């Protein structure tokens, strides 16, 4: 299969908040730069940013402070955050959100006096979540997509990067190999600088909040390119994913605000149980509430649908319908009456805290490569606070954009040569399934097996034995995936796409299980039933990994750098 070659100054993979803001800020800093955004979906329609319901945590009020936001973030992350990244997050969030309004035209909800409204979210010492109803992501992404249209920025839609390209040394990124899904052909994009901002989305678990097209592509590509990643054991499970048997909508969220407002959780015996796990009961942080639900389910106290139940009805139907119209509507579509009855829910895989090891200007361990948003790690430590996720994407998108523009002041805009033969090798690898004959594996079936394996063995509650067995199972699935046969034409071939998704999900599964085995304690989102306690004597480290010669992750750990706040200060912070 032949391919087309395009050249650009800046290549941005992903068109969520991080990718879009990076493009906008880089362009505004230097409109002469040729910027190309590549998105797997239609313009502005992919990614998790658009799906954000809650909002962004931002310090806007005189009674609040960056100090408080930082301490909340470190406490929420159970102290293993990169403090430089966390500090940049909270400090730059303020100008970022203001510019979202003043430069890009977002309009967030207002107080009666016309100032920006901020609502309470779990784990915060101040009500600082800026939002637009319960559809914040739509406002942010629609407005920034329009801003992209306004500028001379090229967007390649329904085009997915399949792998990053590097030079002969492997130290410099020279662009990426794309698959134009609509046409079914490869495109090589040579770029002087590349930003990976595809978003994570742990869809390698059977129950997941992000849409299925989010398949941890960025993390997998970074890993395969030899980038250093960190904290990959930290996968966030959101406590309240809707159970809809047999539907792809299963796992989508009922927003956290329901518990914030006073909703109760019930197990299959019809009893409230959260008091057994945390004095804050239903208002404890996401990791605690998810784990408690999972333990109830493991103990055989699941409801008939297989999870637990949320009860908002006791707050009164009128209250629920007025304050959570979107959630009530989502339930109603599937025959559940959120305002008047209990609704079955389950923890659902939601966010990857780990990712590329970056500095606050989004540089990575490879030259000419930048990473922003969920593909990067370190900002949130072991657990992300609600409202800090889209905040990270926006803040670090902006950081990346400025950083990319600066890059061209001192660096050549001609990338080095891509390693000879690399493009052909990758093209061959990704088209192999077309040439296979004989009995074939069903890609959908393999994906489901992988999701079930991760859910059961590397999920909310883990232990060494299960994870060891998961390694074997993932390896088996990796081998089986090499037998997948894809039929049909090249263009808009969804099975081919699912195959590429699957290879990415397998690579990320490798990273998660290896990192999780290395942390022999429980911390934040990482809970091991064989080491159920948080142990600050041994646990104050970060796990780093790169792809080893054997095709598996090579790990090492480094102690947490308590650059601004000591572990003691973090521990003592009361929200």
């Amino acid at each position, binding site marked *: 299969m032949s391919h087309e070659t395009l050249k650009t100054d800046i290549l941005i993979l992903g068109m969520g908040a991080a990718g879009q803001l990076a493009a906008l800020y880089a362009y505004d800093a230097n409109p002469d730069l040729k910027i190309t955004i590549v998105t797997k*979906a*239609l*313009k*502005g*329609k*992919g990614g998790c940013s*658009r*799906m954000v319901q809650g909002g962004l945590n931002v310090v806007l009020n005189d009674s609040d402070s960056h100090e408080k936001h930082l301490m909340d973030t470190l406490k929420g992350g159970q102290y293993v955050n990169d403090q430089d990244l966390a500090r940049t997050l909270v400090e730059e969030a303020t*100008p970022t959100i*203001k*510019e979202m*309004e*003043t*430069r*890009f*035209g977002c*309009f967030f*909800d*207002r*107080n*009666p*006096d*016309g*100032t920006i409204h901020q609502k309470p979210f779990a784990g915060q010492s101040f009500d600082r979540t800026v939002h637009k*109803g319960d*559809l914040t*992501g*739509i*406002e942010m992404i*629609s*407005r920034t997509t*329009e*801003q992209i*249209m*306004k*500028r*001379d920025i090229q967007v390649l839609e329904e085009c997915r990067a399949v792998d990053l390209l590097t030079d002969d040394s492997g130290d410099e990124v020279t662009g990426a190999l794309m698959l134009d899904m*609509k046409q079914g052909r490869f495109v090589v994009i040579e770029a002087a600088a590349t930003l990976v901002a595809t978003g994570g989305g742990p869809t390698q678990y059977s129950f997941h909040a992000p*849409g*299925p*097209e989010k398949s941890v592509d960025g993390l997998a590509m970074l890993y395969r390119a030899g980038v250093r990643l960190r904290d990959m054991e930290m996968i966030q499970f959101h406590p309240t994913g809707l159970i*809809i*048997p*047999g*539907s*792809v*909508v299963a796992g*989508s969220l009922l927003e956290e605000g329901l518990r914030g407002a006073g909703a109760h959780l019930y197990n299959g015996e019809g009893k409230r149980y959260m008091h057994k796990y945390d004095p804050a009961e239903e208002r404890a942080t996401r990791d605690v509430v998810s784990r408690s639900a999972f333990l109830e389910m493991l103990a055989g106290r699941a409801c008939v649908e297989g999870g637990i139940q949320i009860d908002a009805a006791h707050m009164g139907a009128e209250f629920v319908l007025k304050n959570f119209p979107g959630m009530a509507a*989502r339930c109603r*579509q*599937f*025959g559940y009456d959120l305002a008047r009855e209990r609704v079955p829910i389950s923890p659902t895989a939601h966010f990857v805290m780990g990712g590329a090891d970056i500095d606050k200007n989004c540089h990575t361990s490879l030259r000419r490569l930048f990473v922003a948003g969920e593909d990067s790690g370190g900002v949130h430590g072991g657990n992300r606070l609600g409202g800090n996720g889209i905040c990270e994407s926006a803040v670090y998108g902006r950081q990346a954009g400025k950083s990319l523009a600066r890059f061209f002041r001192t660096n050549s805009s001609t990338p080095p040569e891509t390693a000879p033969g690399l493009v052909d090798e990758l093209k061959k690898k990704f088209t192999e399934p077309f040439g296979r004959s004989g009995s074939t594996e069903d890609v*959908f079936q393999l994906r489901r097996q992988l999701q079930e394996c991760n859910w059961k063995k590397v999920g909310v509650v883990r232990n060494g034995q299960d994870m060891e067995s998961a390694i074997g199972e993932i390896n088996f699935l990796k081998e089986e995936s090499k037998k997948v046969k894809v039929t*049909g*034409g090249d*263009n*808009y*071939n*969804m*099975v081919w796409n699912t195959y590429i998704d699957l290879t990415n999900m397998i690579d990320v599964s490798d990273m998660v299980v290896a990192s999780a085995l290395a942390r022999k304690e429980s911390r934040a989102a990482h809970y091991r039933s064989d080491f159920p306690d948080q142990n600050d004597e041994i646990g104050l480290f970060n796990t780093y990994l790169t792809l080893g010669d054997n095709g598996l992750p090579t790990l090492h750990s480094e102690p947490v750098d308590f650059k601004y706040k000591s572990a003691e200060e973090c521990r003592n912070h009361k929200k």
Partner: protein
Amino acid sequence: MAQEQGNTRKVAIYRYDPTVGGDGHYDHYDLHIEDETNTTILDVLLRIQREQDSTLAFRYACRVNMCGSCAVVINGREGLACKTNVSDFAESKDLTIRPLNHFPVVKDLVVDMGPFFEKYEECLPFFEPRDMSEEPAIIRPDSIERRAIGFSTECIACGCCVSSCTMVNYHDGYAGPAPLNRAFTLLLDSRDALYEERLDRVLQSCYNCRTEFNCTEVCPKEISCTRSIKFIQRLAIKEPFRAKAKSKAEAAASAPAHGENVAAEPCAAHASGEAGQCGCDENLDTGRRNFLAKVTVGLGAVSALTVGGVLASTFVGQSLDKKEPVWVPAGKLGDLKEGDVTTVNLRYVENVGFYNQERVKPVMIYRNQEEDKVVVYDSRCTHLGCSVHWDARQKLFLCACHGGAFELDGSVKAGPPPRPLATLEHRVENGNILIAMV
């Protein structure tokens, strides 16, 4: 509601293979569904792809009504596959799923949304800050501006509205509902600097809307694009232009480049968020208006020919019964400004069947000094009978309801009116004008 044993549905899905070309065809599948209340049309597509035909192509992303990728036509009606459940259709009904109308098909149910985004961009859908303030604007949620905008900003650009619209295929220049809705939200946004340029771009389009409400009916986010389009027309009427329409070429030459800040001086009311209330006429730049392009005149004429014949005897003017006119005094001829139109409210008593009723009716009197003649126009729009008013700046009679516009000679300039304004008989006695009201 929940099916005990489930139900087997016959599903017909449109198939098109670009390497084969042609008109495409329908493939038929039988799908057993256990619980139809829990099964969306997207689930149906995913299952058929997984279980029966892996070559089936369709588009989706978020699967929770937030991205607008999975719009299709289901049993003749546009909707998001993820927001439509099988149980929305009677158990005995077969399902027919086809791609959106008015878009080129890429493969099977996947359409090329390029034309949609082109139209969208033409409407200048992006915010351009009016000033370089670093602080978010103080705008009360109950301001007129924000109440009018409402949740219209929540459009997810799925294209359902465009597919449902019967007009987009007839008028090349028609931007369609969603782009106009976006323009509407920005036109009302007091923070935005491109008011005039945007209005200039979109107003012509608005006159292509025939108020069928299809877009409003199918919108998965329950936005009324019809309302947005009509709102733009009202804005234009409230803030008319001083200059005559320019030629198309001139308009194109003066159109702003993307990103260029071409803000005119804002009016005070606009800046304070009182959109729709301000009388910004005085501040408007004169040379920039090109509202009612010739194309709409042509369209008006077409509809006048086709619809006019049907409606002529039903709406305006001639009653079937011969009725003696009432001659109503309308003031002194000498008081009417020469070469201009004066609106006069006539007060008279009309016999309405079983009773007499006092009427107050506005009429519009044009005094042409050169030809020494007077023309009296009925103020009822020939479309649906709304009140027409004279706009001195544009030298047009305008109707606020659906954007109808008439020339000084009463002929249709733009919009839906099927025929010219009706004229009323008059006579002049001793310098007083008398008008025949029927």
